[in-house]
């Protein structure tokens, strides 16, 4: 663990009393678990919270987005464009797609993974040549990690979502113990140990 000063500097200081987090990815990547743990943790610190998920067709490898909003009192479950404090992106193209939702000074945390959508596979469209560079040109706070590599090192290639959750937790004012407690309540016992490891790995990344 490095300097706590640096860490607290990274923490979000929301302008309004509501924190807006957008979790984006591709159907099947496990974004739902991430939002479930996040909303559970937020509840534990006594905040009002609303979560919006779009199901249906999205399950079949489509673009998925979950919105989590918390604070003293939350009305709308969805985040207006340009109002997200943090975007947690499980995939690069999705990071780019949803970027306009990020505040000017918001942070975007990106998993360095590429999943080609069907139009790209078919050759009808091109995968953006350098999505990350494009994002960097538009926003200051861009953090990129190789979630899969970190998850494999932590002993479970399937736990990329929990690695990313660990990364996200660094940017929120929620005690680490609260995260671990929520994780314990959310994931099945037999996967708990590898998931805690994955979370720690994300936290330390």
């Amino acid at each position: 663990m490095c300097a706590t000063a640096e860490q607290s500097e990274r923490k979000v200081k929301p302008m309004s009393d509501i924190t807006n987090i957008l979790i984006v990815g591709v159907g099947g990547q496990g974004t739902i678990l991430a939002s479930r743990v996040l909303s559970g943790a937020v509840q534990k610190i006594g905040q009002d919270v609303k979560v919006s998920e779009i199901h249906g067709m999205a399950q079949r490898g489509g673009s998925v987005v979950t919105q989590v909003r918390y604070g003293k009192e939350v009305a709308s479950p969805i985040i207006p464009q340009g109002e997200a404090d943090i975007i947690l992106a499980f995939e690069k193209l999705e990071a780019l797609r949803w970027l306009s939702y990020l505040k000017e000074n918001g942070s975007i945390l990106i998993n360095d993974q590429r999943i080609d959508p069907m139009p790209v596979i078919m050759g009808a469209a091109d995968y953006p040549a350098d999505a990350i560079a494009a994002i960097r040109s538009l926003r200051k706070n861009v953090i990129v990690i190789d979630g899969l590599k970190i998850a494999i090192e932590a002993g479970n290639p399937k736990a990329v979502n929990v690695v990313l959750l660990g990364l996200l937790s660094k940017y929120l004012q929620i005690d680490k113990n609260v995260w671990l407690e929520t994780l314990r309540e959310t994931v099945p016992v037999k996967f708990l140990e590898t998931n805690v490891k994955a979370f720690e790995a994300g936290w330390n990344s």
Partner: protein
Amino acid sequence: MKKLLTGNEAIARGAWEAGAVVCSAYPGTPSTEIIENAAKYTEMYAEWSPNEKVALEVGAGSSIAGGRSLVAMKHVGVNVAADPLFTLSYTGVNGGLVLISADDPGMHSSQNEQDNRHFGRAAKIPVLEPSDSQEAKDFTKIAFDLSENFDTPVMQRITTRVAHSQSLVELSDRQEPVLKEYQKNALKYVMIPAYARRRHIDVESRLEKLQEYAETTPLNRIEWNQTKIGVITNGITYQYVKEVLKDASILKLGMTFPLPRKLITEFSKKVDKLYVIEELEPFIEDYIKSWKIEVYGKNIFPMIGEILPETILEKMGEQSKNKNSLPVQAEPALNTPVRPPVLCPGCPHRGLFYVLNKLKVTVAGDIGCYTLGSLAPLNAIDTTICMGASIGAAMGMEKARGKDFARNLVAVIGDSTFIHSGITGLINTVYNQATTTTIILDNRTTGMTGHQDNPATGMTVKGDPIKEVDLVLLAKAVGVNRVVVVDPFDLEKLESVIKEELRAEEPSVIITKRKCALIEKNKDTTPCVVLNESCTGCMRCMRLGCPCIVKEGKKVRINSTQCVGCELCIHVCNSGAIGKEGQTNV
């Protein structure tokens, strides 16, 4: 204790707390989780009905017999259930009867975006619209009381954002269910013309009473603020308005039919400018205009798709002096290719559409995961209309263009959709002597909505095993002589069977039987790999539209983390360039 619940979970909870005894539904996004959650309460009976009409009829019977009953469906499901609905308005209820209509503005997973408040008005029953999970639960309970107090079915209309958003809900205990006394009452429950004429009088006087109720019920309330702008709004839009128009006074309508004319008129008099912000149709607005009150609505806000918080900001921005500080951002056009949904890796439907595309057959399609067979590169579907429409549509095509056309024409329909409303179409092909080939895609589940059971899967919503509908016997029983079952992964056999059945000048049924890839547990998931030196770059395998097979230079590569090893590509490749990982020399 407060719990984070989706609107759908909250409705199930509300029914339970209200002492409901019977819950029924046919799955459909965004309503599916209501009954899935209702089924978890052991005190309530819950079922997947074969379709929405049956679901509502079960609810009707249970209500007449004295029990509180919850029936849930997506918006287009109400079209199917409309027949019992309109007459149930006449019979009224005994135990409370609540119908949940889950509308889908923006069509996240639907074939249209009809506004079912029109159904409420047409059937002359009250319509409630909750705006978050707490209200979804509370309104469900109120709806049961309303239903019994006014002797009417009650529609609770939710939208995708209410159904699938989670918010904190205060839980209560279950109120002991009281079965109301059952008495034979033909005047009320037998709708022959003589009795129905009398009941229609009751319906009209009930509507008047409901109108009075609408004026005073706490379901409709005014939140006073500055009076420059007054907004009348309903459902999820209320939450957006509250968030982005902090200075506006709001008349929140929890009951949108019948409307409180006096309350609305009073409100309109006290504000400088009156707006109605409602998704889809100008339902509230049209009434207000008919009362000669000046109002801004669909002249500013879209009639198509969802109204989002930023839409409200943008549209009101120019109108409002109290312009909210939130910027509506215009990013430079980011070049992001769309990511449409695709059939899953290992999906049993893929082989079928590959063959249909290859044979250049006209395909009348239906509603389910297999609708995705219409997208490139499979491009295999010609029509998609509504649940069960494929067989009738194929028949109509044949009747219009003649038997020869039917030699190159199939209807494709899933197992669940076939039970829902395909069987009647099949009976018609026999009865009216069509020669169509119907392909039933039996993947042993209702896939699209997230894998619900149905009468053909051998399992109830509570997880109890039952005798399943035998699709072969069923097809034979209605008079189809030619019924073949084939494994859709056996591409050669599948192709020859389809060709043979197309030739036959009589109705025939092909059942492609294989479990949905997401529920199949006993399979070898060793991924496949491409032998680079054997791959000729012919791109045949690309025609499968499997998301795991990607172009790399002039050849292809298989994404091994996604591939489930279904081996379909092995069979499609002419050059023997694809094999199972570990069993090939790469």
